[in-house]
């Protein structure tokens, strides 16, 4: 097809479109959808009995705030990565809360090792963590995919990876509100490990959920 004909064809099929909100606003919308769902899951499974007491513990608070902040920052980075020309520096945003989160868990492991010695520093299976994080992060993950697909699939692996990190981070935040597992090594391996695994899976699925072919196809299908 000649380019001139293509231009005429595109102009003939171009309907009005509403510009996407900026990534911060979209992250806020995503959080507003995720939090009520998380609250519902926690209510159904019942919050942990010692939650009020845990909220007074500094380490628990730091790790929860860091997990939540990682989720929000990763959501923001994911949305920014689908805006052509947006500053790529924003992709570094999740690194700080992630470092705080990992650092706190690491510091807890070292403290436990010093306090209890190698004998008391043991790792038990806790297979509940991964499916629980998936459950709490399910609707946030689906919402994230729907919202990311409205953007441009410039960096599919990166966008999907950040999106998965956002959902998994919030999933872990919710998990610790009802799952009474606080041993740093256990949290690091089973919970943070699950977040890492889900992020990696999301990253690998990047081109499946975000690609130009489906984006252009959706544009044609929805009459954009």
């Amino acid at each position, binding site marked *: 097809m000649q*380019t001139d004909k293509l*231009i005429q064809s*595109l102009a003939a099929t*171009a309907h009005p*479109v509403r*510009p996407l909100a900026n990534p911060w606003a979209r992250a806020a919308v995503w959080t507003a959808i995720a939090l009520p769902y998380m609250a519902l899951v926690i209510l159904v499974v019942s919050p942990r009995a010692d939650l009020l007491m845990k909220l007074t513990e500094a380490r628990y608070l730091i790790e929860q705030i860091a997990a939540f902040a990682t989720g929000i920052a990763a959501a923001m980075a994911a949305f920014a990565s689908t*805006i052509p*020309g947006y500053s790529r520096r924003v992709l570094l945003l999740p690194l700080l809360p992630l470092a705080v989160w990992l650092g706190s868990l690491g510091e807890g492991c070292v403290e436990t090792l010093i306090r209890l010695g190698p004998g008391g520093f043991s790792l038990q299976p806790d297979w509940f963590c991964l499916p629980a994080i998936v459950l709490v992060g399910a609707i946030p993950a689906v919402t994230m995919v729907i919202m990311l697909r*409205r953007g441009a699939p410039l960096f599919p692996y990166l966008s999907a990876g950040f999106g998965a990190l956002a959902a998994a981070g919030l999933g872990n935040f919710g998990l610790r509100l009802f799952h009474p597992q606080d041993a740093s090594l256990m949290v690091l391996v089973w919970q943070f490990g699950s977040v890492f695994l889900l992020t990696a899976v999301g990253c690998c699925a990047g081109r499946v959920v975000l690609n130009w072919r489906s984006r252009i196809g959706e544009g044609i299908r929805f009459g954009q």
Partner: protein
Amino acid sequence: MTKADSMGYCRRPHGVAAKSRRSIQTAPGLRLPVSMTTRSPEKARSFESLMQAVQAGDAQAYVRLLKDITPRLQQMVRRQRRFLAAADIDDIVQDILISLHAVRATYDPGRPFMPWLLAIARNRLADSGRRHARQNAHEVQVDELPVTFPEQEANISDTYGDPEALRRAIKTLPPGQREAVEMLKLREMSLKEAASASGTSTGALKVSVHRAMTTLRKVLTKSDGRAD
């Protein structure tokens, strides 16, 4: 459609943005036509206002915008992919325009237009490069595949009445093409048999026989003309 600007280009060092109200990020080593980076403020503003009109559904503004950016995109692609034919460059530019169309909702009216466009163009250019590399690694381009069906109706062959002239023409072919014609057309070996006998791939044999047939057709048509 505006005329293409002069052929001067500016090379932006890695990480250095052009001075404007907002920074224009360019890919490392991405050479941009001067027309894409040093537009007068009035013309720069017109892209933004055209794009806003496009988002509002103004078809005329859309045509004007696309016609304005098309020659610039063609120049950019030509600079980045000097080895491509004009038709391939047009394909990439059309890809960019279609992608722009699909994601025009992602343009923020408060931000400059060119970085937005260039990010899409860069991305589609990289995709086309990957596609090109994949095709070259796994495919052999032939314009005309040899006939593989035995039925007479499927074999459209130019009947030629002078076997001596044909024999002479075959002898003038380069060794590889002559061997391919002898094995596949005269001895009627299968592609696999011919490949293992000659020690080449079936793809290379197909290319050789295609080239040989083209050459023979030219040679024999010329000698027909001279004889007449």
